């Protein structure tokens, strides 16, 4: 049975509503959009969501994701086309939308339920559960304006999931709250999906979407780019970030590139796979034409570790597998600090290092030796398998596979000694001096 059906849906927004006459603005309010400067947030969107399905919507900012949600929730209507929605919709377009700051948490719970048309006695029965989930036992009779943003979001999420809607809409909201509450929310969403609630999820967190959703819609500038399995949608989404290289293009300047083939790697592929630091929790995306199958991180003595003394090396042993013919495979890594700042990123193109062309099915072991001349602290890293992009110049790559949020690597330093440098990172620096000279001055 269909829960939501969109048929040739268009949604246009008028871009200059600021400079209108009273009459034409009234016409617009009345739905008579004859304006000359229209922006189409959605163009010819058709899809169906079955009852009980977990459905994701992805796309860049401004692709029209929120507009679709607002139409499903009934907040706005399409300019043309048909939309059928069967069942009670509970939407988290924004957590705690409709909360009144002067009213207490308790009053706002009843208020939010009333907006959805849920009777008071139903909430009476559910009230304890809502408060327990939000963990707001001591604050439920405090006006919500005194809440922290995390408390506010927790109560909003708790209400939206507790009213037992037939269709639950969640729009990119789980970035609030600490990691423990986020995990609790994911568990709750899985439970809701298992109970047969139709679930519609919009997020940029593609790992979470792959985890929760069966199917996904990929939007690009208000048009359907792809609709189908979540994995395929996510891959296509990332594939759009860069452009695939043209196979027939002649690769330039090969001579300038260096190549060092080590016949003796420290590890065999089996050893790398066995000690691989990659796991399913890692954030992974890409179209996987060139795949990172395993990665092992060791220190110079071959011991698996993420701990490194300042200025010492870590070895990143990566196995790449080509799932299609790759003329110019490239690979590299990114290093991020605790705040998520990119500290350093480099790979084969930056080091002018050329990897051999790979045919479909071939594997290649690549080792990065990185000297951690960065200040002591915690870092995360990404591993990337890519190809040069055919568009956008030499500094744009087409990413086949990327693992994010690996680590954390801890860089340590002996505090009993003078640090080799202060600041974020060490720059190459040399010091010279001459022989002592007897001074004639003063």
């Amino acid at each position, binding site marked *: 049975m269909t829960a939501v059906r969109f048929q040739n849906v268009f949604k246009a927004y008028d871009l200059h509503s600021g400079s209108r006459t009273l009459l034409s603005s009234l016409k617009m309010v009345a739905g008579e959009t004859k304006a000359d400067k229209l922006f189409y947030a959605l163009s010819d969107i058709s899809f169906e969501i079955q009852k009980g399905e977990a459905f994701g919507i992805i796309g860049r900012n401004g692709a029209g994701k929120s507009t679709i949600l607002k139409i499903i929730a*009934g907040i706005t209507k399409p300019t043309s086309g*048909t939309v059928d929605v069967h069942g009670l919709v509970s939407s988290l377009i924004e957590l705690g939308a409709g909360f009144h700051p002067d009213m207490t948490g308790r009053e706002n719970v009843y208020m939010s339920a009333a907006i959805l048309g849920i009777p008071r006695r139903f909430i009476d029965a559910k009230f304890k559960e809502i408060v327990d989930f939000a963990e707001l036992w001591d604050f439920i009779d405090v006006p919500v304006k005194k809440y922290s943003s995390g408390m506010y979001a927790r109560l909003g999420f708790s209400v939206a999931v507790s009213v037992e809607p037939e269709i639950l809409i969640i729009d990119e909201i789980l970035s609030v709250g600490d990691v423990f509450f986020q995990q609790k929310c994911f568990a709750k969403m899985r439970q809701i999906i298992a109970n047969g609630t139709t679930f519609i999820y919009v997020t940029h967190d593609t790992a979470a979407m792959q985890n929760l959703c069966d199917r996904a819609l990929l939007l690009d500038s208000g048009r359907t780019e792809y609709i189908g399995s979540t994995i395929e949608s996510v891959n296509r989404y990332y594939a759009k970030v860069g452009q695939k290289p043209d196979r027939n293009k002649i690769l330039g300047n090969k001579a300038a590139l260096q190549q060092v083939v080590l016949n003796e790697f420290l590890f065999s592929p089996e050893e790398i796979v066995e000690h691989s630091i990659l796991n399913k929790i890692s954030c992974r995306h890409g179209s996987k034409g060139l795949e990172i199958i395993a990665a092992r991180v060791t220190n110079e003595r071959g011991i698996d570790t993420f701990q490194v003394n300042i200025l010492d090396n870590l070895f990143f042993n990566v196995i790449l597998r080509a799932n299609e013919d790759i003329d110019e495979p490239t690979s590299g890594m990114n290093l991020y600090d605790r705040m998520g700042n990119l500290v350093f990123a480099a790979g084969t193109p930056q080091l002018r290092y050329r990897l051999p062309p790979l045919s479909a099915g071939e594997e290649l072991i690549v080792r990065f030796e990185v000297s951690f001349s960065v200040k002591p602290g915690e870092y995360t890293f990404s591993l990337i398998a890519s190809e040069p992009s055919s568009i956008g110049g030499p500094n744009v790559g087409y990413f086949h596979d990327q693992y994010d949020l690996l680590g954390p690597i801890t860089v340590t330093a002996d505090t009993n000694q003078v640090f080799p440098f202060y600041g974020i990172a060490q720059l190459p620096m040399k010091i010279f001096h001459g022989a002592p000279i007897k001074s004639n001055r003063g």
Partner: protein
Amino acid sequence: MPDSNQGVNHIISTNPMSYHAYWALVNMRRDLRELWAHRELLITLTRREIIARYKQTFFGLGWSLMQPILQTIVYTIAFSLVLKTPSAEGIPYPIFVFANLTLWTYFSTTTINAMNSLRANTALITKVAFPREIIPISTILSGLFDFIVTFVVLLIFNFFYGFLPNIKYLYIPLILLVEIFFILDLALVLSVFTVVRRDLTYIVTFLITLYMFLTPVFFSINALPKALQEFYFVNPMGSIIDAFKNVVFYNYEPRWYSLLIASIILLLLFIPCYKFFKRADKNFADVL
């Protein structure tokens, strides 16, 4: 909408080319049923509005009395002392004016508030879906709270002047219902205008003041020219205030024919007003 579509939450089907067909689609019965289904929201929103208005104020309830009491003092000084009008229509001037203002303040304040209510609730409208008319209606109902407070004070004043409550007071809720319908008709149309252009508030405030002189509120109808006196019984606020005075001061029945005409007109006007509002309300989230 065919009734066979049981369980369908909402179906939106529009074609910008044929908006007359859409007009016909706006089925009033369905809209009213939807409104009834959300009656708890209406109650909650009304309560919220009353609480929000008084929670953070120093004088609390005093504010709802401030306006009619101050106006009564000003008009009493002007009419009793300066223009030497000891009474109007046989009623001592201060309570004559205060009784009129009890109904009038409710009308003028609530009309303006309801007119601005959609703009004031932008956050709600752009984030959640529910029948939008609940917002102006809850504003109108929350205004009743101020009315009741003022009415109690009127009873106290009347007691000092020797006017005691009588059995005809049972008509007052009915009179009030006619007034609520009048405000509702106005609010449904004006609030849509205000969504588009906010400066309309100033024009409407001015027109309401003008209307106060025509009704009239703070002087007797006999002071108006004969031609304007005719207007008294056709204008809804005139017949409402007249009925109220009959009940409160004279222990008379309301002038039924006048009240009935007003009621019929207001009920008939409700249909196009409501349709106008419902036709516009799907676009509020985009325009606000």
